[in-house]
């Protein structure tokens, strides 16, 4: 019996980043409860926890499988973990000012955010379906509560409820899919599903199960036609949190999709490729077209995010060793530019309950030069203009993305145009431009620029991903 309770130290070491994150979360909650005067420490503490987790993540060599094969640690999970932690870190920086401006307590916020990041990391690493599901629930429940964190706002509540209702359905989908797969194959380990699914003689129920799973993660990635929650949720949720919401869960879901697709793609059946291609094309088209019609910058970014997830699927259509490089680079680019954009949005719109009209930014490029430049760089990166990381990402994803990139550009140009070429329409009031927020914006924007100008080391590093598979 005693065997069960002793966790091998190698396994613990492999779980270090997650342990640090959730531990910091608990610590913050306790601090908040018992030392109310330590409020100001919460943000630095959670940021430090994230960095420490990141240090562990990058520092430890990928150790392969742990916990009896339930979790995996590979170059890919490390890379995705980095993307997740970067967006967590930027979101924390951006949140401090937001919480202070809106007079919201910070303890639960940071704790939930860190636990959410824990869930995301675990989901990216899970190689067993029930572990995957538990991780998914952990992150989902944290996301639901964070989406409605601004309690006084009706749009915030609306955002949370919408996200929750749809998300609950999707959890059921995923669980049902797992049940079906288990029923057909007798196993919940992804590696054991592989041989069965690769036989070619697959029962309809197993296919249905897999489809349900893919739908579930397509929902988390806000791919069309599972995207309806994204604009509403983004609009109502706290902006700095959206910087996290729009990146981290999507990154981990993409990894899960890669794992699932790797099961069925090798047999050469084109059906799954077609399915992914369909999702990709739909997302690009819907995202870009609808984004053009948006007047609210957060909704616009939501739709453009849908389109970007479509780009991201392109390398997955034909899954191979070459798929990982564009996937990771694009996710990193997306994480940076999205975080930058949402941070600036959170700093420049003081009434989070109202709409975030693009036209209200008119002329503010001159009033807030630094934030204006940051937003411009992020927008250009979203539009894929060199020398930004967005361009490198698009370049790697190649022709499909470039083709429909036109529309994306048209819409990002609208923001730039409003910022600099329209006369001002409103006076700033109630803004709180704190240092962490500005630092987050600068880090994101200039990170995009720097990595876009000198992408060599990044690409070299990412290239190892492809050779590892």
């Amino acid at each position, binding site marked *: 019996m005693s065997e069960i309770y002793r966790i091998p130290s190698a396994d613990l070491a492999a779980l270090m980043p997650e342990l640090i994150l959730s531990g910091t979360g608990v610590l913050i909650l306790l601090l908040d409860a018992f030392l109310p005067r330590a409020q100001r420490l919460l943000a630095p503490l959670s940021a430090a926890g994230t960095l420490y987790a990141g240090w562990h993540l990058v520092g430890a060599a990928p150790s392969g499988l742990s916990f009896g094969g339930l979790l995996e640690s590979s170059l890919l999970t490390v890379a995705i973990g980095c993307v997740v932690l970067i967006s967590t870190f930027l979101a924390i920086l951006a949140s401090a000012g937001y919480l202070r401006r809106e007079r919201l307590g910070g303890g639960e916020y940071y704790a939930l955010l860190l636990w959410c990041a824990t869930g995301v990391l675990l989901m990216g690493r899970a190689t067993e379906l029930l572990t995957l599901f538990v991780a998914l629930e952990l992150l989902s429940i944290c996301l639901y509560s964070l989406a409605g964190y601004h309690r006084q706002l009706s749009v915030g509540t609306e955002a949370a409820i919408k996200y929750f209702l749809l998300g609950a359905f999707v959890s059921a989908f995923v669980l049902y899919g797992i049940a079906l797969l288990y029923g057909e194959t007798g196993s919940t380990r992804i590696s054991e599903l592989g041989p069965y699914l690769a036989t070619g003689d697959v029962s309809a129920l197993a296919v249905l199960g897999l489809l349900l799973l893919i739908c579930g993660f397509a929902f988390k990635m806000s791919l069309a036609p599972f995207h309806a929650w994204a604009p509403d949720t983004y609009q109502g949720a706290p902006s700095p949190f959206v910087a996290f919401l729009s990146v981290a869960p999507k990154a981990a879901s993409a990894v899960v999709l890669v794992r699932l697709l790797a099961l069925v793609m090798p047999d050469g059946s084109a059906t799954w490729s077609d399915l992914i291609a369909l999702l990709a094309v739909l997302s690009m088209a819907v995202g870009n077209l609808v984004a053009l019609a948006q007047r609210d910058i957060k909704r616009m970014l939501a739709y453009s995010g849908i389109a970007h997830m479509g780009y991201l699927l392109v390398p997955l259509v034909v899954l191979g060793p070459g798929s990982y490089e564009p996937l990771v680079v694009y996710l990193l680019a997306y994480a940076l530019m999205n975080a930058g954009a949402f941070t600036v949005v959170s700093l420049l719109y003081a009434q989070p309950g109202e709409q975030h009209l693009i036209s209200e930014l008119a002329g503010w490029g001159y009033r807030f030069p630094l934030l204006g430049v940051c937003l411009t760089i992020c927008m250009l990166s979203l539009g894929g203009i*060199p020398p930004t990381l967005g361009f490198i990402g698009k370049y790697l994803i190649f022709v499909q993305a470039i083709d429909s990139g036109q529309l994306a550009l048209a819409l990002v140009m609208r923001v730039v145009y409003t910022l600099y070429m329209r006369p001002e329409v409103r006076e700033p009031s109630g803004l709180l431009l704190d240092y962490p927020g500005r630092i987050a914006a600068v880090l994101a924007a200039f990170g995009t620029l720097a990595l876009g100008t000198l992408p060599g080391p990044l*690409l070299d590093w990412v290239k190892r991903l492809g050779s590892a598979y």
Partner: protein
Amino acid sequence: MFDWVHQVPILSIVCYVPLIGALFVVFFMKGSNGAAIKKFATGVVTLDFFLSLPLWFEFDPQGALFQFRESLPWIASLGVRYEFGVDGIAMLLVLLTTLLGPLAFLSSWSAIKEREKEYYVFMLLLQTGMLGVFMAMDFFLFYVFWEVMLLPMYFVIGVWGGPRKLYAAIKFFLYTLVGSVLMLLGILALYFYNSTGLFGYEGLGNPRSFFIPQFHEIGLSLPPELQFWIFLAFFVGFAIKVPMFPFHTWLPDAHVEAPTAGSVILAGVLLKMGTYGFVRFSLPILPHATWELLPWMVGLSIVGIVYGALVAMAQKDMKKLVAYSSVSHLGFVMLGMFALNPAGINGSVLQMINHGLSTGALFLLVGVIYERRHTRLIADYGGISSKMPAFATVFLIITMASIGLPTLNGFVGEFTILVGAFHRVWWWAVWGALGIVLGAAYMLWMYQRVFFGPMTNPENEDLKDLNGRELLYLMPLVILCFWIGLYPKPFFRAMEKPVDYVVEIVEAAQQTTMAVTEEPEAVRLPEAAPGQ
């Protein structure tokens, strides 16, 4: 005297001095101190011009094709390298850019009154972008600069432009963007054909590379159908920039709305990027497609020449007139280039420089008078030569340069182009000559209506003649117009080698193209005979 330039990365220095200046302005100069910013920025571009002068003296026309080479790894995993270098053509265009820079900046001193800091930052960035385009020898790098340059121009038009600036800026941006995206597809097609292959074509298996001379090498062996499509992709990108008929419609809007300096840079340098793209990429990399599409290219050029001239004649606004005259003149450049013989291409390259000088000067002149009277309508003027004698003289010289009077630069360029065109197909030259006649007509007619005759508008009574600053930025252009008109030899000498290089590739392709096109006919004839 300038030996030292071979020891330092002179091209990078010339390219990035404006960028460094821009960063300095951003971080260390207060926006309220406009006077200091404009002096500093002008100083930076002037310094840059003097730094670029050694290129002229140290460039060895007999030496390697590309000189002042710089080569560094950049993005190794994609095969992208940081490659700088100039041949004679690029060297001349680099000098044109660094020369027009200070002149345009000087002209902005009185024209730009608000948001000076941002204005000079964007103009400096623009300068870096344009220089990089001409210096890059790596296609990826070229593309990066090509795009980078787009944005500052968009801002310059959109923020400091005229009444319809927003419309003009967006039109400019969308047009050039569509072009550059297609161009990127073309670049990628070349890249993949050179390495791993694409669309069912087996690649050549070379290491991944965007090195432009490498693409020149494989040009002759590219399959003709592939060339055809890549040529079309490049064509859209470059033809929009040139602009060739029917892609020219953004140009009059952009020119009319842009501030004077913006127009000068736009006409003087930006348009040359299109023609430079043709001579650097389309012709030598895609020679088969060049021959295949030759009738279309020449047809569009001739339409551009005549149409541009006719529309220019109907203009009431001086700036619009000059803008349409650009369409006509650039049609000339394209006609010469697609004569595909040494004379034609030489003339074409020289005419790029000429057009940069004379049209740049024309925009500056229109800007001078616009600042005084805030109107560009020809009808608002008349008889002002008595009030502004120096202005009238300079304007006359530039007008003559533009219409190709002997002893001035336009004559040399146009004549050489006509010789080239005549050698290829004689009636091309006839259309070209018609363009010259029309050009003389609209320019002289405008000159007459603005400067001669009775002074009908009392508001013109107290017009002031050119001041020292204006003379300072006009004189270099006048001197250069005479220099090229009287002694163009150094210019021709510099471009001789690259032009011969292009012609050699294109002629080699001509022989194989002819062989390919004749073959199917030879096969078809006997088959058709029994049927009859």
